[in-house]
């Protein structure tokens, strides 16, 4: 397998991964898939995945997520309860609850789906909207449902709907858009950040597209088209001329060749590797697939998750865990639960408050998750999750969890944790060091396991996904 990105054959890269003697389909690879497609998996879930091929698993993941996107799980009743308080911070705890209690199975009774939540998080960062400015939990919730409903669906529909989403319009100062003074904010962002990327439009295109959106307003928390304020004149956008409405303006943007490449590039960065920016020849096959499938996201996701590139050393351990992946991943892999209100606060402190992205560009991700301040905060978060009075593992504690997983000796324990929690395994020397540390530790077994995991979290590779 080539290590130079420029030398990677795109056909090889996006062909389905076939396990071999050199790279068998094992728990470590399955854990990699679950970390990227969701927020990790328990030991038992990993074992179940090994009964199918990687391609079948990726297919099932996508199909289950698609089915889940059309269901109203019981957590929506939880959302209703959270909304009654009118606080978007409570809504953030609700979303973490969904992520944590999601299930890989396609069972109708399952609460939520990890891939669906992961993609909703991706779109939340893509169509970034901050609750601080919107200041209305119900609108943030409505947008979140919109993103989830279309997470694996047609990107065109998502963009059309998000363009009329009250939370988005409030966030981009577009609650009133009069023909005398077209507001260019949304027109700029839809081209620069949501669909095309820089260099694929001109300032003139922005001004003309802004004219299409005139008459679009938000009144009493709802989208309203005010025909008297709409500019019915002729506009020229991205080479097309006509008396376009807002919807038609969005359609013109959606038709651009740059769009599938822009989206495919972002999906590669989110699911495969942080750095470097994917070369064009790797993006092109996915962009082609996206266009051919009428901008449907599901086939692209399935292609990525089943691919050779995804299971290669160019992808494994080549992403920095986001704070949410770190916290929810730790709890999920260890079958844990905790006070999610508290987790929301801690995530805020280390740079990822859901519903509160830093700006319209969303979270930068990658190396930006780590700095001197967040590094300590991340370690403290792990420590607090492990020791907080409300945290339970396997319904009880870490000793119970280890026992239920048949993990007995210190060596088995370190190996087991290494396999389910780490993308890049520890060296033998590091493993021996951890075993020795565990043996020398005092206190009850749960406490010693907690200290062991906390120690593991201080090693840089713990923060890689």
């Amino acid at each position, binding site marked *: 397998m080539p290590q130079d990105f420029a030398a990677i054959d795109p056909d090889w890269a996006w062909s389905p991964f076939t396990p071999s003697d050199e790279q068998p389909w094992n728990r470590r690879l399955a854990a990699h898939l679950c970390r990227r497609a969701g927020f990790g998996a328990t030991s038992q879930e990993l074992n179940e995945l090994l009964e199918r091929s990687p391609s079948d698993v990726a297919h099932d993941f996508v199909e289950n997520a698609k089915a889940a996107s059309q269901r109203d799980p019981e957590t929506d*009743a939880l959302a209703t*309860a959270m909304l*009654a*308080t009118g606080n978007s911070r409570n809504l953030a705890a609700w979303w973490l609850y969904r992520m*944590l209690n999601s299930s890989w199975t396609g069972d109708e009774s399952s609460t939520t789906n990890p891939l669906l939540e992961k993609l909703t998080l991706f779109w939340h960062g893509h169509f970034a909207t901050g609750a601080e400015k919107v200041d209305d939990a119900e609108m943030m919730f409505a947008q979140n449902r919109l993103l989830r409903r279309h997470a694996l669906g047609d990107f065109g529909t998502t963009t059309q709907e998000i363009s009329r989403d009250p939370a988005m319009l409030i966030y981009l100062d577009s609650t009133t858009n009069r023909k005398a003074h077209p507001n260019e904010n949304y027109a700029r962002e839809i081209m620069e950040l949501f669909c095309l990327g820089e260099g694929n439009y001109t300032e003139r295109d922005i001004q003309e597209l802004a004219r299409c959106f005139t008459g679009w307003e938000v009144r*009493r928390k709802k989208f309203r088209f005010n025909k008297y304020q709409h500019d019915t004149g002729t506009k020229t956008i991205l080479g097309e001329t006509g008396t376009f409405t807002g919807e038609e303006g969005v359609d013109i943007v959606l038709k651009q060749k740059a769009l599938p490449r822009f989206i495919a590039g972002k999906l590669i960065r989110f699911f495969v590797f942080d750095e470097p920016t994917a070369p064009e020849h790797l993006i092109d096959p996915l962009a082609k697939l996206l266009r051919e499938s009428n901008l449907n996201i599901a086939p692209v996701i399935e292609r990525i998750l089943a691919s050779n590139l995804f299971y290669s050393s160019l992808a494994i351990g080549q992403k920095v865990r986001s704070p949410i992946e770190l916290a929810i991943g730790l709890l999920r892999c260890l079958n844990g*639960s905790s006070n999610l*209100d508290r987790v929301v606060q801690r995530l805020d402190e280390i740079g990822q408050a859901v519903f509160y992205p830093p700006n319209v560009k969303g979270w930068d991700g990658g190396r930006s998750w780590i700095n001197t301040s967040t590094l300590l905060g991340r370690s403290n978060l792990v420590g607090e999750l492990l020791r907080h009075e*409300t945290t339970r593992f396997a319904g009880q504690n870490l000793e119970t969890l280890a026992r239920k997983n048949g993990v007995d000796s210190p060596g088995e324990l370190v190996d087991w944790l290494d396999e389910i929690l780490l993308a890049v395994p520890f060296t033998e020397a590091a493993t021996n060091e951890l075993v020795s540390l565990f043996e020398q530790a005092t206190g009850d077994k749960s406490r010693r396991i907690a200290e062991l995991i906390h120690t593991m979290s201080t090693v840089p590779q713990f923060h890689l996904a």
Partner: protein
Amino acid sequence: MIRHFPTTALLCGLLTTALASTNAWAQTELNADQRSAVELLPASCLAVVEMRHPDQLLTTLTEHNVWKKIKQQPQYTAAISNPGYRMFLGIRSHIETQIGMKWREAYDTLLGGGITVAFHPETEGLVALVRSTDAAKLQSTTRTLIELGRTDARSKGNEPLPEEQYRDITVYGKKNARFAIAGPWLVITNKDELGKKILDSLLDGSRTSIKDNEKFATARKSINDEPTIWSWVDLGTIRDAGLAKGLEKNQTENPIAELLVGGVLTNLRKTPYVTASLYVTGESTRLQFAAPHENEWVEEFRQYWFGPDGNGVADAPLETESTILSISTYRKVSEMWLRAGDLFDERMNDELAKADANLTTFFAGKDFGEDVLGAFGPALQILVNRQNFEDVLPKPALRLPSFALAGHLENAEETQTELRRTFQSFVGFLNVIGAMQGNPQLDQDIDIYRDNKIYTASFIPEPDEKDSERARIQFNFSPTLAFAKDRFFIASTKQMAKELVDAAYDEQATRGEASNTAIRLNAKLLGDALADNRDQLVAQNMIKKGQTREESAREISLLLEVLALFEGASFDVRTTGGQLKLQLSVQTKN
């Protein structure tokens, strides 16, 4: 040496026998001693706590419905099946075998004569006197327990419990933690000197005891029925010794605390002593504080709290069938507001001055302290009712109880007009704020109810919200101002205002109580109000504790079940029979 040995041995033997006989004689004498614990305590003790029948208390608690309910819970089953508890049971069983009694019999026997704890200022010592109902069993059990402890200490390489003699009585332990058995008494103290005083009293008979202390004797006489636990504190001596500096402060920075307990502080600055009595029965738990009280002690600036001649009495709570909580007080708030300079510190006075200016503007230039608050009578009530949403649409998702302020108007005819105008201005103000925040608007209306005008305002739902069962929080409210006779009601809902008007006409409901402050909580209605929001409570638990819906629902059900075991709670402040009495009571279903 050999020649003298028999003589020496004989002398030693005689001495040992004599000492043993003396000890045995002394113990026999002590066993026959019928004096109570308070007759053994020095007269200068500052605080005494007595529990005369610990056995009865334990019986009440273990046979209580609440305890039975707790025992049925899976959490209880889980707790008693954990290894730590099982180890405890094993140790208990071993001790029971060694002492020849089950734990309950041992508890009843060893503590059955009562427990008395006292603080003695001269020695700065605490002493506990525990009287057994069977002196022999107390002796044997103590010896067995001491031996068990010593064996355990030796096995762990620790120093066994030391002992020494004091006037033929064996005293165990080290300095600052000693105990001795003297007849039926187990004496435990942290000061040797105090311990010796008690043992001397036991052996010699005390000349004077706390029983002869005048303040103590007066306090004891005032006990009507026998409390489960009774305590007495010589507050006068504590104050004179400068040990209650907190009571010397006249001013506070907290108006709420002043309103609630200002009068109590006045009393504590003068009263010679305070008693606390705890009564525990199957039906209720009642904690009563009492202190001598004289109206002359009340400073001029606190007369707003007690009323003229100290006879200020709150209205009987205007409770209706749906009242969860009622707080009825006698407070001349206008007087408190105008005397703020005497009652509050500089910072709070600055805050109150600002508030006064703003409120005066809000009330169209009328002086807030003198004209507005002055228009209200001193008997004020705050009431909280459970709302009935059965026939109401839209129903809010979060269902809050309604609440109201009720009182009397000094000059009803004139003040009603002012209040109505202010109410209407306030609703207009809410509408402006609501419009800015995208909230629903209030629609004002006037209703006639029992020949009284009711000024009300209702939120107007959006067309798609009219039939909602999960509407916004605003739909819990329909602010209302109502009048009946000389009374006024400012209620959060029209329904509650009407209920209060009904209650005002109900002679039974307005029957007077002699309390200065009366608070009543209805546990059933509180449970019902919580049950109205069960989904919210379950959701909060899921998020806060990371529980599944089932786990969370189970926990909330348990909370509601436990609440259902209670009838309610009450708190009263009264000045009666030369005493200021505070009583907190929790009523349970048995």
